[in-house]
C-alpha cells in the first residue's frame, strides 16, 4: 500500500519533486542527528547505546555507513539491471591514479597535498576518464564489456601504484595516509567527512529519483529508448557519473571492498523479493541502509573487527536469506511453485487419461460418457506410466477427492473428479482444435503441442476458445478428440 502510493508519487513528475524534498528532509534530520546533543537516556547496556546512537563517534560512523548503504543500494539497482554490477569494482580501483596525481599536483604547486576536495576531484576525473575509455573500447573493438573493464582497471591500478610510489619518495611531501584514502578509514570519520557524505548521497538520490523513469527505460530496453528519442548515451553517462560520485565518496569513508559490496549486494538481494522496479528500489535502499547500520554497530562492539568487513558480512547474510526465501525469485519459493505446478500437471494428465479410457467404453459417440471403474493396468499402458509413477499420481488425486476406490486394482472417478476430468479433457480438445484450425498443426502432432499450454489455460481464454471455435455453449460439452488416441502411448 505504502509502496503503491510511493510509486504513484514517482510517476507524476511534479510529485517526484516532493519525493526529492522528502529525501532532503530525511538527510537534514540525519545531519541534525549527528550533531545534536542527545538526551542521555538511562543506559541499558552497550547494544542499546549503539542502536540509539548515544555515543558520538559511533553515531557518525553508523550514520555515514547507513547513508552510503542506502545511496549505493539505490544506484546499484540500475547497475544490476544493466548487468554492470562489476562497474563499481573496476571504477573504485580506477580512481587510484587520480588520487595520486592530484596529490602530486597539489604538492608541487606548493599546496597542502591532502586537501580533500582536491583528492576527490582527482579521483572523479580518473573515474570519468575510465568510463570514457571503457565505452570507447567497447564500441570500437570486438572485445566485450568485461575485457574492456578489466584492461582499464589493471592498467589504471598499475599506474596508480607507480604514481603512489613516486609520491611517497617525494622529498618534503607527507604522503602517509594516502593509502587509507583507498582502503577506507571508517573508524576515524570526522564531521566534515560526514557532511560530504550527506551532501553527495543527497544529490545522488535526488538525481536518481528525478531521472527514475528515464533510467528505467535505458535499463530495460536501451534500443527502444534510443528509438523514442531519449538521449540514451547521455543518460548512461549520467548514471555512471552518479556511480562515480558514490564510489569516490564511499571509498574515502569506508574503503574499496565495502563500496563494491554496497553497490552489488543490496540490489541483488532485493531482486529476489519482487518483480517491480519501485519495490526493488525501496528494498535495496533499505537493505543497504540496514546492513550499514547493523554492520558498523556490530564492528564497534567487536573492537578488533574492521568496519567494512563486518558490514559486507551482514549484507552477505541478508543476501543469502533473500536468495533462499525471496518471495519472487528465491530458491525455496520457486521450488514450491514448481512442485505445485508439477502436481497440477500430473493430476490433469491422470484425469484426462481416465476420461479417454472411459470414452473408449462408449459404444455410441453421441451418448454422454458414463463413469465406470478403470483398472490400473490399462491406465498405466495408456500414458506409458510406470507403476510407481501411477501410484504417486493416484495418491495425489485421492488427496483431492477425485477418486473413489471400490475394487482393489481398479479406480473410479468421484463426482467432482468426473467433472474435473471432463473439464480438463475439454480444455485439451479445444486447444487442439484451435491449433489445428489456426496454427496449421497436423492433427497427428497436435497432442504434444496442446499439452504444453493446456495446463495454464484460465477460464477467460477457454471462453474465447469456445467462441472462436463456435462451440455450442452447452455446459461441459466435450468435443470428440480430433485425432486417434493411440492404444499404447499417450
Amino acid at each position, binding site marked *: 500500500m505504502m509502496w503503491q502510493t510511493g510509486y504513484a508519487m514517482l510517476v507524476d513528475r511534479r510529485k517526484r519533486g516532493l519525493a526529492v524534498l522528502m529525501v532532503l528532509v530525511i538527510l537534514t534530520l540525519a545531519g541534525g542527528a549527528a550533531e545534536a546533543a542527545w538526551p542521555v537516556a538511562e543506559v541499558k547496556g552497550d547494544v542499546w547505546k549503539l542502536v540509539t546512537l548515544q555515543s558520538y563517534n559511533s553515531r557518525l560512523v553508523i550514520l555515514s555507513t547507513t547513508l552510503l548503504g542506502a545511496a549505493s543500494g539505490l544506484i546499484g539497482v540500475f547497475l544490476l539491471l544493466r548487468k554492470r554490477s562489476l562497474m563499481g569494482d573496476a571504477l573504485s580501483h580506477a580512481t587510484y591514479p587520480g588520487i595520486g596525481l592530484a596529490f602530486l599536483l597539489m604538492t608541487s604547486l606548493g599546496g597542502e597535498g591532502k586537501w580533500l576536495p582536491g583528492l576527490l576531484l582527482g579521483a572523479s576525473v580518473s573515474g570519468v576518464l575510465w568510463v570514457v575509455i571503457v565505452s570507447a*573500447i567497447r564500441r570500437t*573493438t570486438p572485445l566485450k564489456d568485461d*575485457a574492456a*573493464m*578489466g*584492461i582499464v582497471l589493471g592498467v589504471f591500478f598499475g599506474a596508480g601504484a*607507480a604514481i603512489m610510489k613516486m609520491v611517497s619518495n617525494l622529498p618534503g611531501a607527507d604522503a602517509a595516509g594516502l593509502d587509507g584514502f583507498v*582502503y577506507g578509514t571508517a573508524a576515524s570519520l570526522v564531521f566534515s567527512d560526514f557532511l560530504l557524505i550527506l551532501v553527495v548521497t543527497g544529490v545522488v538520490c535526488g538525481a536518481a529519483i528525478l531521472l527514475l523513469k528515464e533510467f528505467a527505460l535505458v535499463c530495460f530496453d536501451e534500443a527502444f529508448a534510443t528509438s523514442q528519442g531519449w538521449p540514451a548515451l547521455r543518460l548512461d553517462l549520467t548514471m555512471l557519473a552518479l556511480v562515480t560520485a558514490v564510489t569516490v565518496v564511499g571509498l574515502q569513508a569506508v574503503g574499496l571492498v*565495502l563500496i563494491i559490496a554496497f553497490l552489488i549486494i543490496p540490489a541483488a538481494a532485493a531482486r529476489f523479493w519482487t518483480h517491480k522496479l519501485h519495490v526493488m528500489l525501496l528494498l535495496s535502499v533499505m537493505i543497504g541502509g540496514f546492513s550499514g547500520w547493523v554492520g558498523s554497530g556490530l564492528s564497534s562492539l567487536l573492537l578488533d573487527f574492521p568496519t567494512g568487513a563486518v558490514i559486507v558480512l551482514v549484507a*552477505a547474510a541478508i543476501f543469502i536469506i533473500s536468495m533462499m526465501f525471496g518471495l519472487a525469485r528465491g530458491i525455496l519459493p520457486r521450488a514450491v511453485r514448481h512442485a505445485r505446478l508439477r502436481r497440477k500437471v500430473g493430476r490433469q494428465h491422470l484425469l484426462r487419461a481416465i476420461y479417454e479410457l472411459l470414452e473408449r467404453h462408449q459404444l455410441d459417440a453421441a451418448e454422454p460418457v458414463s463413469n465406470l471403474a478403470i483398472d490400473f493396468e490399462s491406465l498405466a499402458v495408456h500414458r506409458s506410466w510406470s507403476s510407481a509413477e501411477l501410484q504417486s499420481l493416484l495418491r495425489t488425486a485421492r488427496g483431492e477427492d477425485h477418486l473413489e476406490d471400490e475394487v482393489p486394482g481398479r479406480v473410479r472417478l468421484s463426482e467432482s473428479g468426473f467433472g474435473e476430468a471432463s473439464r480438463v479433457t475439454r480444455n485439451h480438445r479445444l486447444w487442439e482444435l484451435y491449433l489445428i484450425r489456426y496454427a496449421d498443426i497436423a492433427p497427428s502432432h497436435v497432442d504434444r503441442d496442446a499439452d504444453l499450454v493446456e495446463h495454464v489455460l484460465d477460464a477467460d481464454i477457454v471462453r474465447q476458445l469456445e467462441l472462436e471455435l463456435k462451440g455450442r455453449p452447452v455446459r461441459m460439452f466435450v468435443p470428440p478428440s480430433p485425432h486417434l488416441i493411440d492404444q499404447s502411448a499417450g
Partner: protein
Amino acid sequence: MEFNWDSLDTWTVVIGGLSAVAAAMPGCFLVLRRMSMMGDAISHAILPGIAMAFLLTHTRITAIMFIGAACAGLLTAAFTQCISKYGKVDRGAAMGIVFTTLFAIGLILIRQSAKHVELDPGCVLYGSLEYSVIDVVQIGALEVPRAVISIGSVMCINILFIVFLYKELAASSFDPSLANTLGFNSGLIHYLLMMVVAVTTVAAFESLGSIIVIAMLIVPPATAFLLTKNLAHMLVLSAVVGLLSAFLGHLGAMAIPPVFGLEATVSSGMMAVAAGALFLSAWLFSPSQGLFLRLGERREHAGRPLPPTAGEGS
C-alpha cells in the same frame, strides 16, 4: 640518460616476464570466455585461503599458500556458479557478491592473526618486486631469486596445462555445448582453469602484487586478441606482449620518473602501464581491426554510391 643496469635489474625483468607469461596463458581463455573480471575476483578472494592456510599451519611455506589459494579460487568459482545458476543472478553480480564476502572474511581472519604475524593486506595488493630479487637461493654457481623458481614452475605448469588440454579448452571456450557433446566435461575444465588462475595469482602476488596480475591476465591477451584470429597465435602473441611489457615496464620505471625530477618507481605498476601502452597501439594500429584502418575504410566507403536496391530503378 644513463642507467645502471645490473643483475638485479635483469632478475626483475625475468620475474616480471615469467609472471606475465604465466598469467597470459590462462588469461587468453578468460578473455575468450568473457570472464575477464574473474581474475580480479579471484585475486581478492584468495585472501581468506591464504589467511586460513597460515592460521592452520603457522608457516609461510609457499606450497601451503598455493593450496589455500587454489581452494579459495575454486570456492569463488563454485559459489559464483551456484548463485548465478540457482539464484538466477547475473554472473558479474554473483562474482562481485562472492569475492567481496570472501575478501571481508579474509580481512577479519588476518586482523585476528595480525597480533602474531605481519601478513599485510597492502603487501598482498601491491607486492614488492624490488625485494623479491634480493631473496635468493643458490643453484649451482648461480644465485637465483626464490621468486624466479616459484613463478617459473607455475609458468611451466600453465604452459603444460594449455598444451595438454588445448583441444578441450578451445572447444569449451568457443562452444561449451559442443564440448559437452564431444564428451569433454566443460564444467571440470572451467574449474581447472579457475584453479590455474588462482595459483598463478598467488604465485605472482608476492612479487607483482595481485592487482597488477589482473593487468597481466587480461591486457596481453586482449592485445593479442586484436592482432589475430587464431587461438594458437593469440597464445604466443600474448606471451610476447607480456614479456615486452615486463621489459618496457622496468625500463620505464627507471627512466620516466627522473624526467619529472622524481625517483625511480615500482616496476610492477609500470609493467601494467607498459602493457596498457602496447594494448593502445594494437587498438590503434592493428592490421586487421585497428582504429585507423577502420576510419580509412569508412572514408573509402563514404565516397561510393550505394548499390541500387531491387525495385528502385523501375
